[in-house]
């Protein structure tokens, strides 16, 4: 390779051809452009005229230079010019390819595998044995070198792991190295303690080359939820220029589809390695979030899973009685609210409202009885997994609930009366709490000495009472009992929820007990001591690329390990499920800092060079082509052949040459802007009542529909208070439909089926109270539902539509009397087969009423084949456009058709108003009394 400054040539011998340029110069210079033969009568006037210049039979100098430059570029291009050529030196002996294989590698794993592949291929060509080792997945035993080709086949199996290398294992492995080999170390760019030792061990064996990607390492720390804000912290290894990263919250939407629920941008300030962004999410949304991730970064470090810490339970509170103007501190719910407000979302309201909201838990403070319906609802809710927590109180003590037999909403039977201890009128001291037994959910909570119980309701001793007690007083009387019902449970605190009967609500124990009962959740992650002795199973795990996967059958993890042990094959990042909660273990923790590797100066680092080797052959040849094209146009212009259409073609060619050289993004930026909603249409459609018809694509049919609606509009204006504006033609693919009270849709056989989006729009329109009149216009061929092409087309068109059951218009349908009294609904054809939404099955004729009390609302579709638009159609002068029937009878039919149209629009705009006339006799009757 010949190197001249920053430029190198792979085939410098070809440059000798440049010597030929002067010869070319002489040849080109000697050949003038060929003359054009032209027939021209004015030649008689030209006779005797001499050319001024005699030089012009030579090629002009600038054109000559242009051609020389083109030829020179071709020669230089084929000589293989390379900008910033890099000499690749080949080593000998075995080669070790070492990969960190961590989550930080995953961000550009493809590039890394490509580099490994290239290195192995090179080693294979050089006949060097090679080995491929991933530090996160160290091979058992020592280093084994194989043929590079064999290693290459294993390359696709190499994946990054979502954890860091185990320092001890790495040190072991480094200690076991022997022999001489060169190393290519593909680093993930993060500094680790184990790195320096490993590097020195490798350097003893041979030369070490590092490869590092220039792409920044990004990570996301676990989410922090404080003061109603979800705070996310993104970190980066290298404090570079300011940069913004998008962080997205993923979770299931109400339909159960995984999607992005929220998005926020975190701004790294210049020189900062941390960027914070706080999100304020509504509880509904927040509870659905399963993970946050940095957008467009494929790495487990850029994903943080959320656990119960982010979730807030919905707890409904209901007190038995409102004591009017009693003191706040005496309110049965005061202490519960204080305990739950920081960690749960509270719902208040009537019991049936509460159950509708389907909370996680319902707390009833001294509520004794329910109505039958409420009881059934509550039972149903508990069966589905609800947690019902009841507190005793005077009302419960005074009631007969669960006395003789177990109440379905109580955990135990109660003895009447209850007891009070340590009061002024009783013996004994107020009782403290007994330590919690191992089977109790409260096990492990320390019992403060100052908790004392003055009064309580007493449980009937039953055979299964012992199983149901989860907390007891010192003397063994049950304080808290529970019973499982279906998927849920009922828990009874035998004391009040306020400080009236006991000091329990005043103590910290109360909050902890609520927590243990999973009524409330807390944001702080549990520490090792708390988790000691528990076993957790992985539910979901992250792979190195940050994708969430099912855990499968991974072995359980001890609680203390889960809290503190470093991540590894035995403790993969993911969601772990315990007895009553879920804990997320993420790749990054709250303190993680990303520190870039500082390679010693002696180690060459690939991938970070700012100057990349750039082959210029393509550019040189392309430039030569452009020059030759310019030369072509210039030669034509020079010889006078560039006239007329040729000049426009030449201009187009020149533009085509120049435009791609200009910035293509500027051109492409204009592409991709979707069609904007048309405000003009919205304004036109909503300023006045507008009838719309669906564009079928058949121009004549569309014109007929338009004329029909225009004629109907004239009739409406003349006869009724409805004064519609000019009708609009509606493209169901692009136009918003909700502006139109009624859409007239003539069926054309050639009409294309609407797109899925259009169908969604149509269904929304129908559900939102819109009406579509389908007209197959084939009633002259037979009744509706026959096998006419339009009928079949209608079936195909309407199949995806949300159309209710239909029936032929009954004689008492409101359409028969919305404005005119009608019994027939003819258009240009007079068929009685006109179908509307069926009346409800239970509609019955009431004695003495002319009409049934039919369905509310407006029929969403009317289907017929009478070609109503044809009968309504009128020109600008009001004259009908299409013949209807014959003579006077035909005119009568047109009139009835017009009346049907008026009834139709009336029905759409006034709904079942005329149906309410059913009640007029009854109203008159009452007024008379």
């Amino acid at each position, binding site marked *: 390779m010949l190197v001249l400054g920053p430029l190198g040539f792979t085939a410098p011998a070809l440059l000798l051809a440049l010597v030929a340029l002067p010869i070319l110069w002489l040849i080109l210079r000697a050949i003038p*452009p060929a003359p*054009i*033969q032209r027939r*021209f*009568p*004015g030649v*008689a006037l030209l006779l005797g005229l001499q*050319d001024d210049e005699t030089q012009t039979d030579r090629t002009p100098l600038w054109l000559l230079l242009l051609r020389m430059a083109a030829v020179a570029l071709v020669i230089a291009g084929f000589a293989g010019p390379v900008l910033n050529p890099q000499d690749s030196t080949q080593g000998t002996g075995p080669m070790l390819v070492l990969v960190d294989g961590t989550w930080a590698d995953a961000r550009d794993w493809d590039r890394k595998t490509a580099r490994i592949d290239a290195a192995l291929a090179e080693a294979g060509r050089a006949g060097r044995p090679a080995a491929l080792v991933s530090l996160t997945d160290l091979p058992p035993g020592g280093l084994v070198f194989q043929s590079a080709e064999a290693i290459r086949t294993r390359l696709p199996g190499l994946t990054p792991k979502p954890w860091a290398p185990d320092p001890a294992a790495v040190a072991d492995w480094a200690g076991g190295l022997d022999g001489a080999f060169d190393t290519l170390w593909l680093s993930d760019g993060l500094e680790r303690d184990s790195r320096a030792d490993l590097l020195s061990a490798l350097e003893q064996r041979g030369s070490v080359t590092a490869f590092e990607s220039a792409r920044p390492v990004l990570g996301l720390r676990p989410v922090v939820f404080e003061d109603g804000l979800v705070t996310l912290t993104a970190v980066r290894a290298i404090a570079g220029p300011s940069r913004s990263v998008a962080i997205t919250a993923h979770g299931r939407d109400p339909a159960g589809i995984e999607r992005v629920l929220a998005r926020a941008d975190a701004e790294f300030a210049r020189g900062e390695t941390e960027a914070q962004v706080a999100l304020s999410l509504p509880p509904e949304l927040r509870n659905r979030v399963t993970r946050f991730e940095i957008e467009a970064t494929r790495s487990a470090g850029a994903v943080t899973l959320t656990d119960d810490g982010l979730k807030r339970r919905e707890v409904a509170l209901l007190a038995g009685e409102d004591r009017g103007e009693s003191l706040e501190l005496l309110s049965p719910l005061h202490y519960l609210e204080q305990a739950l407000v920081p960690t749960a979302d509270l719902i208040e309201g009537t019991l049936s409202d509460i159950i509708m909201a389907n909370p996680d838990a319902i707390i009833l403070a001294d509520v004794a009885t329910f109505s039958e319906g409420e009881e059934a609802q509550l039972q149903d809710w508990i069966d589905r997994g609800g947690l019902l927590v009841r507190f005793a109180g005077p009302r419960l003590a005074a009631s007969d609930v669960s006395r003789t037999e177990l109440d379905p909403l109580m955990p135990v039977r109660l003895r009447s009366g209850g007891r009070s201890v340590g009061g002024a009128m009783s013996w004994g001291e107020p009782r403290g709490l007994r330590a919690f037994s191992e089977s109790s959910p409260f096990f492990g909570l320390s019992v403060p000495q100052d908790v004392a119980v003055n009064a309580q309701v007493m449980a009937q001793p039953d055979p299964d009472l012992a199983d149901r007690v989860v907390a007891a007083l010192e003397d063994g009387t049950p304080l808290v009992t529970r019973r499982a019902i279906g998927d849920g449970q009922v828990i009874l605190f035998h004391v009040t929820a306020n400080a009236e009967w006991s000091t329990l609500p005043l103590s910290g124990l109360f909050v902890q007990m609520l927590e243990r009962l999973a009524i409330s959740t807390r944001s702080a992650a549990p520490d090792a001591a708390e988790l000691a002795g528990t076993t957790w199973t992985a539910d979901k795990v992250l792979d190195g690329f940050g994708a969430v996967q099912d855990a499968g059958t991974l072995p359980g993890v001890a609680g203390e390990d889960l809290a503190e042990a470093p991540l590894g094959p035995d403790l993969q990042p993911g969601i772990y499920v315990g007895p009553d909660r879920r804990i997320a273990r993420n790749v990054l923790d709250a303190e993680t800092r990303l520190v870039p590797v500082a390679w010693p100066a002696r180690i060459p680092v690939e991938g970070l060079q700012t100057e990349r080797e750039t082959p210029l052959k393509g550019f040189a040849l392309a430039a030569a082509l452009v020059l030759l094209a310019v030369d072509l146009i210039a030669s034509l212009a020079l010889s006078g052949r560039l006239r007329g259409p040729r000049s426009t073609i030449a201009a187009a060619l020149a533009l085509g040459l120049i435009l791609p050289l200009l910035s293509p993004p500027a051109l492409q930026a204009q592409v991709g802007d979707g069609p904007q909603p048309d405000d003009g249409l919205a304004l036109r459609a909503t300023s006045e009542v507008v009838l719309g018809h669906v564009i079928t694509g058949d121009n004549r049919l569309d014109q007929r529909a338009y004329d029909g609606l225009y004629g109907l509009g004239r009739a409406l204006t003349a006869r009724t208070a409805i004064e519609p504006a000019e009708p609009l033609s509606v493209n169901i693919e692009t136009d918003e439909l909700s502006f139109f009270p009624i859409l007239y849709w003539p069926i054309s056989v050639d009409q294309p089926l609407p797109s899925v989006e259009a169908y969604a729009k149509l269904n929304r329109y129908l559900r939102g109270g819109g009406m579509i009149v389908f007209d197959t216009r084939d009633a002259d061929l037979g009744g509706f539902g026959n096998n006419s092409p339009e009928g079949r087309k209608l079936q195909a068109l309407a199949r995806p539509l949300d159309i209710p059951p239909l029936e032929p218009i009954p004689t008492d349908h409101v359409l028969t009397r919305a404005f005119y009294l009608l019994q027939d609904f003819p258009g240009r054809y007079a068929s009685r087969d006109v179908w509307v939404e069926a009346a409800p099955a239970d509609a019955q004729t009431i004695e003495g009423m002319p009409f049934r009390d039919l369905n509310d609302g407006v029929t969403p579709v009317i289907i017929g084949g009478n070609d109503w638009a044809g009968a309504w159609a009128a020109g600008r002068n009001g004259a009908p456009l299409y013949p209807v029937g014959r003579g006077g009878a035909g005119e009568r039919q047109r009139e009835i058709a017009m009346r049907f149209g008026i009834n139709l629009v009336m029905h759409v705009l006034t709904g079942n108003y005329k149906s309410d006339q059913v009640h007029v006799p009854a109203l008159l009757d009452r007024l008379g009394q």
Partner: protein
Amino acid sequence: MNATLTDHAPTSAAEEAGQTGPRLRTRSEALAATLPPLLADASLLASTVVLGSHGRRRAGMGDEFWQYRPMGLGDEARQIDWRRSARSDQHFIKEKEWQAAQSVLIWVDDSQSMTFSGDKNRATKSDRARLLALAMSVLLVRGGERVGLSTIGQLPRSGPVQLMRIAEALTSNRASDDYGVPETRGLPFQSRAVFISDFMGDMAPFEAQLAKAADRGVRGALLQVIDPVEESFPFDGRTVFRSMGGTITHETLKAGDLRSRYTERLAERRERLRMLARQAGWQFDVHHTDASAQAALLWLYRATERVR
């Protein structure tokens, strides 16, 4: 003079062809192929011109009223206009304006140079010249004048049949000369003449013919029909120019340089033509083939009508 707007020509052509016998059938078919379009174009063009008075501005035979004059000696009693005379004590005679048909001879250059067109979408100079000539003829025949075409070699006549003859002559084969020379055969004394050509050829024979015509007291109009390309000379580069017939060639290495000198020569030629016309009492005008034919027709009509 009343203008007759009916167009007899196509029917009479058919009659003529039918009467002369089957042998002429093929010829008439060929003729009909080009005749009706040309004739129709010409009629259409002629219909855009509103006929003005064509009177002689003196009393004579005619339809239009000229003046009342007192009855004099030698006037016949039947000439008295009784309506006018009853209003006074004198007898008046109503005189009409003298309306004599005039003879117009048209010469259309049919040489090779007229077949040039600078653009394939533009009609050739010859097409435009023939159209103008025929439209002029239609107009004149409608006005009751006698029209003739110099190539027919007959005295000017009037009537639709003459139109057919002119049309036929215009669509017949053309001369192979490079440049044309006006024909003054059959040019009656004191008549009118119209020369339509590009006047690109040698000026000497033309001048001779013009002088001959002027000697006979003939007045008329010269219309130079010219293509815009001939006017602007938009050529560049090394070019060999060749006349339409191929008899004259001129080679240049840089056509663009000749432009100014060419246009100079063209203007010179035009100035000479204008001067010649003035000397002979003729009118001269230039018509470009990309311009409207109507304006040229109007100019031609006014030029032949002018009375001195």
